[in-house]
């Protein structure tokens, strides 16, 4: 009886495993090499086919074989409570971040909030100061939107004079994307009755940092949401359970988690996290404040640092792109350091303020190359080269870094982080 093609031993043309070129015609080189390793074992049925599997579980977990797909974090010594963990972007596919891998940034730890004892207060320049419980909000008409959240500090290490050699998750993993479901904030503000002098809304979390940010009223009346669900389940504690503010396209820090209070005002509060932090110092010593929208950005994830090339031949380049201004209009890829560019395929649906996957087929001939990607958004803004981006800011200023990421590939196929 004929063997299944995957079990067939490849036809060797010479000693030490040189495979005959006919293999390329028959099954394809790649397809025949990997199964060949398993061919010896393949003579007996794999054990998981011979005994019943595990029983059902209350909450499923990723495969044991993928246990190492974890958020990346460093715990700076002596820094209780404040810190970040990053989405391992280079180990994921598609555009939706699994809830357990959504990046985290907390300023004093993750509170364990009893939803029955939590309420949202709306007060200040309103006709009717109101409080809402989670149960109240669950009775409102809900909306679902797929949106990214990116920390303003994402990729900020690239402001340093020399490129850090680290994987894409470590370099750029303070961005994640989820389907968020909740109540449009405009509905609640309308119920409270916003007064005509109102211009800002000061949002505050119920964590022990009582993290607080001033949000333009216009944003609150546009696409802001009180998010209650994340990818179909209750918002995770690290993401603000029982409720968070979602401000699509705005710097992550403004998307206040554990939201407990919205005070409508005529002016911003100039809180610590919109003055001392999350403001952008320029070379002349002045700082941009309330630069809230995240710029257009893209990162090639395949290949990227740590995923070295497996020899010359066919590869798929793929990565993610996004913009706080709306949809990604296009992503271009260069394999010659930016001299010539090719349009990548955008995998639909291309949603506004959401991660967008791009792909492009590539045949590597084994010579050294510099890979670059650059995104353009529907507002017409394009990712700048790093050399242009850094000119806008004081030395070391890393907030809102959205310059192009370059990966250098040498003849051995090693991928390194490079500056342009």
């Amino acid at each position, binding site marked *: 009886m004929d063997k299944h093609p995957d079990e067939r031993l490849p036809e060797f043309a010479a000693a030490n495993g040189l495979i005959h070129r006919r293999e390329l015609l028959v099954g394809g080189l790649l397809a025949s090499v990997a199964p060949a390793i398993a061919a010896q074992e393949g003579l007996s049925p794999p054990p998981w086919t011979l005994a019943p599997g595990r029983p059902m579980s209350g909450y499923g977990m990723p495969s044991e074989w993928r246990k190492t797909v974890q958020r990346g974090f460093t715990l700076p010594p002596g820094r209780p409570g404040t810190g970040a963990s990053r989405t391992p972007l280079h180990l994921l596919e598609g555009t939706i971040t699994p809830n357990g891998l959504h990046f985290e940034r907390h300023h004093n730890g993750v509170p364990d909030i009893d939803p029955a004892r939590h309420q949202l207060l709306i007060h200040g320049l309103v006709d009717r100061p109101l409080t*809402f419980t989670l149960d109240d909000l669950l009775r409102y008409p809900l909306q679902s939107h797929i949106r990214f959240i990116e920390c303003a500090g994402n990729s900020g290490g690239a402001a340093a004079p020399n490129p850090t050699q680290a994987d894409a998750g470590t370099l750029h993993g303070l961005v994640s994307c989820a389907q968020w479901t909740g109540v449009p904030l405009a509905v609640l503000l309308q119920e409270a009755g916003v007064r005509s002098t109102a211009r800002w809304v000061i949002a*505050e979390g119920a964590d022990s940092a009582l993290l607080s940010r001033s949000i333009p009223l216009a944003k609150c009346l546009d696409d802001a949401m009180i998010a209650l669900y994340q990818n179909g389940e209750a918002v995770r504690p690290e993401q603000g359970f029982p409720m968070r503010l979602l401000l699509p396209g705005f710097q992550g820090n403004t998307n206040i988690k554990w939201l407990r209070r919205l005070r409508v005002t005529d002016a911003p509060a100039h809180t610590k996290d919109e003055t001392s932090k999350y403001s952008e110092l320029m070379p002349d010593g002045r700082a941009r404040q309330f630069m809230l929208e995240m710029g257009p950005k893209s990162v090639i994830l395949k290949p990227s640092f740590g995923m070295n090339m497996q020899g010359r031949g066919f590869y798929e380049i793929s990565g993610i792109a996004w913009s706080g201004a709306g949809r990604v209009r296009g992503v271009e890829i260069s394999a010659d350091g930016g001299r010539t560019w090719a349009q990548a395929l955008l995998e639909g649906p291309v949603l506004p303020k959401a991660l967008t996957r791009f792909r492009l087929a590539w045949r590597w001939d084994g010579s050294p190359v510099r890979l670059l990607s650059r995104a353009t958004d529907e507002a017409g803004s394009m990712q700048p080269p790093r050399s242009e981006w850094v000119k806008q800011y004081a030395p070391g200023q890393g907030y809102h870094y959205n310059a192009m990421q370059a990966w250098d590939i040498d003849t051995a196929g090693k991928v390194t982080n490079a500056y342009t």
Partner: protein
Amino acid sequence: MRTPESRALVVVVLGLLGSLPVLADGPGLGKAADPAVVRMMDLTILPDGKDLPPGRGTVAEGKQIYEIKCLACHGVGGQGQPMDRLTGGVGSLATPAPVKTVNSYWPYATSLFDYIRRAMPLTTPQTLRSDEVYALVAYILSIDGVVKPDAALDAMSLPAVKMPNREGFLNWWENPRR
């Protein structure tokens, strides 16, 4: 995203600013907030300082409290280590080695009161009395001469403090790409 519905809602809301019957978009389940709850929860101090609480604290008192409750994390005289540096760096922002601290960078002293009261000390936040917060603000500001060594701060004097970098911030939301 601005869906057509949300845009329509914005128009409706903006159109009604000032007048305001409750519209039928939501079930209207918000409960009237108890003014006592609002007072308890509202810790925000804007630059106008209108919501500053009664109380008063001096530089000397602040130094004592600082050394007990803050020094371990922010260093002698706010010089930093292991955590954020709070003092020094005044005049450095336009140099090749800018040092951003409370005294060199923050535009308003009210923000310092607001932040210390809500968030510090890190492991026991919201435990400081108003007098202590005024005193800590006075002490930190005094280290770089922003207030005099014999200064006392209260709800009147604190918002009047002029921070060295008061004019250093550009509101990018209202006026981008200046």
